[in-house]
């Protein structure tokens, strides 16, 4: 038995192009769950506003129900009191799901290096994209969204069942 030519091994050609199509569909229909706690949430409003218009990316339907959301946009300070809530919301989301940490507070705690603030949400949930800034400009939030789109486009349909992914979730004690 000879070796399969490159690109034809593993998942078949149709499977991969099918994955691509689904990836494209997902990328263009990312419904955000705006977990807006503070300042960055206000900038997210600006992102939803007419001038920046997040709907161009197909993401203008904010799903406040975690079941229906595709990306968790954590915007603003997450206090230690809030940490478990973030985790719970993440657990309630249906796969595939991505997490974007927007702004200094959500990514690292920012200037709030205090006893009550969680120093970055990646301590409770796995984060896919970090957006710096305090608060980031709407451009930067859109930038983060496009990074997620890139992820979605290139993600294998089977990634969510892979042992690596399970291990990642396990390391956060999720499910």
């Amino acid at each position, binding site marked *: 038995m000879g070796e399969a030519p490159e690109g034809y091994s593993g998942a078949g050609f149709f499977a991969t192009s099918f994955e691509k*199509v*689904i990836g*494209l*569909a*997902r*990328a*263009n*229909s990312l419904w955000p769950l705006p977990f807006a706690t503070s300042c960055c949430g206000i900038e997210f409003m600006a992102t939803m506003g*007419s001038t920046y*218009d997040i*709907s*161009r*990316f*197909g993401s*203008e339907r904010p*799903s*406040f*129900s975690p*079941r*229906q959301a*595709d990306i968790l946009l954590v915007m603003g300070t997450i206090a230690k009191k809030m940490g478990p809530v973030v985790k719970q919301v993440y657990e309630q989301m*249906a*796969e*595939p799901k991505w997490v974007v940490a927007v702004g200094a507070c959500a990514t690292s705690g920012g200037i709030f290096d205090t006893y009550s603030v969680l120093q970055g949400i990646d301590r409770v949930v796995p984060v896919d994209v970090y957006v710096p800034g305090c608060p980031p400009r709407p451009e930067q939030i859109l930038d983060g969204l496009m990074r997620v789109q890139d992820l979605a486009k290139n993600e294998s*349909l089977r990634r*969510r069942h892979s042992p690596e992914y399970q291990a990642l979730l396990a390391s956060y004690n999720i499910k």
Partner: protein
Amino acid sequence: MDSVDLIYKAIYILVIFGITLLIATYSTYFERKIAAFIQDRVGPNRAGPMGLLQPLADAGKLFFKEEFIPGKANKVLFILGPGIAMLVASMSSAVIPFGDMLIVGGREVYLQAIEVNIGVLYIFGVVSLGVYGLMIGGWASNNKFSLLGAIRAASQNISYELAMGLSLIAVLMLSGSLSLRVIAEQQAGFNWNIWYQPLGFLIFLVCAFAETNRTPFDLPESEAELIGGYHTEYSSMKLGMYLFAEYINIFVVSAVMSTLYFGAYNFPFMENLRNAFSDPVLGNNVVTLVGVAVMFAKIFAFIFFFMWVRWTLPRFRYDQLMKLGWNILIPLAILNILLTGGGILLKDYLF
């Protein structure tokens, strides 16, 4: 009914079903575009040219999203809910006459899936069942927000069905028939019911908004209060079916309104157009086809209106909604019946 007719009916039903689905799918696109345009934005424009593939992207995503049934939910009913919503919604377009009669190869072909002599009642009955989808789904989710949404949906639909039925009766008094085809035929040319029933139409319009759960009557799913209402716990395609059912309902209600009040496929000067052709068959077919186009134009106008209103008005509160339904619309509808009856008697007396 011979076999050719059966085949034709089957094809026609398929076509209507396809068109319904297509329109429902693209309604989401138009909703987003219209919302965007009203709000000085451009709306989806990155999925395909002008964002035209946006509904497909949504559908594709929803299909491949994780099926999720909450642990405490009632599994059977949880799945049944969106199914009922979808089934009921797509059943109702069966009796709507989308066009008059085509003459193909000497055979008269009516552009209507099923002619029932109680078409109006059929639609009314089917629409009244639509609420089960929401109720069962909301209840089965075992979530308080969903339950509240379900309860709101139930009481709202029942209340507004009454006013809707009463406003319909006035139309039926005018037409003397329950068949949608007959009602459509009576409005030939520019003899539309809206000229005789402006008040009835207004009531029907308001009730149509309420029955389809659109702003300002979108209490069952009002985002700011109930998060998603009855579909809070739904993900993936089950959610898709709910959203789909909503848009199909809009389409059907628009079609019904066009049929009942705006002359269905009739348009002014259709007789002149018919007579302009020397060949009566050709004339008839051209008029019918133009009629179909006119019908869809009316439907689209209504769909646009639905969206336009949605992005303009605030929503009611639960008790205000009930008050509007019971204290204002129903008395008005009864008044309308009396006025119509009086008018008919007066007309008989005078002429």
